[in-house]
């Protein structure tokens, strides 16, 4: 069975990366697994390195996923 998609939070500023959504404007198509995000990738908002993101098991607030898609 495929591993569920995960969500990650930047510990420098709170920016979230959602595997389901990816970051198309930053070259990461929807479905890009966190392990496939390059090791030298940094938070697009604050420059925090990938190693300082934390996996979170959190749902979106109402309407939040649509906002995250265009973040």
């Amino acid at each position, binding site marked *: 069975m495929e591993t569920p998609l995960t969500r990650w939070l930047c*510990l420098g*500023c709170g920016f979230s990366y959602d595997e389901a959504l990816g970051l198309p404007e930053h070259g990461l198509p929807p479905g890009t697994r966190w392990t496939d995000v390059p090791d030298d990738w940094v938070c697009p908002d*604050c420059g925090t390195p990938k190693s300082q993101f*934390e996996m979170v098991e959190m749902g979106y*607030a109402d*309407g939040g996923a649509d906002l*995250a898609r265009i*973040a």
Partner: protein
Amino acid sequence: MTKSFVLRSGERGHDVIYSDGSASSYVAGHPGSFIARESSFNFHQYQGGRPGFGTIRVFGDEVFNGAGCGYNMHPHHNFIICAFVLEGELTHINTAGRGMVDQLRQGDYYVFSAGSGGKHCELSISPENMNAIYLWLMPGQLYLPPSYHRAHFDIRTRRNRIVQLVGDADGALPVAQDLRVSRLVTDRAGRFTYTPRTPEHGVYVFVVDGGATVNEVALARRDSMGITGAGALALDVPDSSDVFFVETAMLDDARIRAWEKAHGADLID
């Protein structure tokens, strides 16, 4: 089973960030201004400590030194950021809702939930130093509507009892998390009891000033401890003291678990 750790004042992460040089776009103020930051948990360059406690990711004891010193406008998402002003005056600007400029003095505090995205700026405009406790919390959900609330804790009239500042009590500022922040300011010796809503909740106790003996552990100024599994905390306070309590739901977090496994001695059964 009660578990606890003790973090002495001098064991905290220590950062000094200057308003000139490489951090000049991040730190405001005249050349020579600087922010001194003591971090109880990992933060930015400081990655040598405990990654967090429950929903707490940052507990920073910060001093803005010099006129105009602080953090320039910068973005956040999701984190709930609280500031409790101990000394000086903090000018806080944020973009939550219609946005706002606020000025906070001793006893004032705010809860800023960055939610779906917001910016903020933290400044000490006058030459007087500003000292605040900054607390960053994981939210209950991602992309909540951004919000800002502020209130005042009157140090003169609310002495010698534990007062809830953030949480679900009457008059406390609301927070979208299973969390309470309380404060005890005393001017005489006494014994106090702090009871978390369940023993499964963790309590992070931080002594701002004076001292306190918490469940028989003596804490001096700026010492702290975290406790889980305790039905109640017994505090003996010698005389004039100022103590913060952050009660939080405990998350099963892989980073914190891995850190505790690698530093077994720090988690005392």
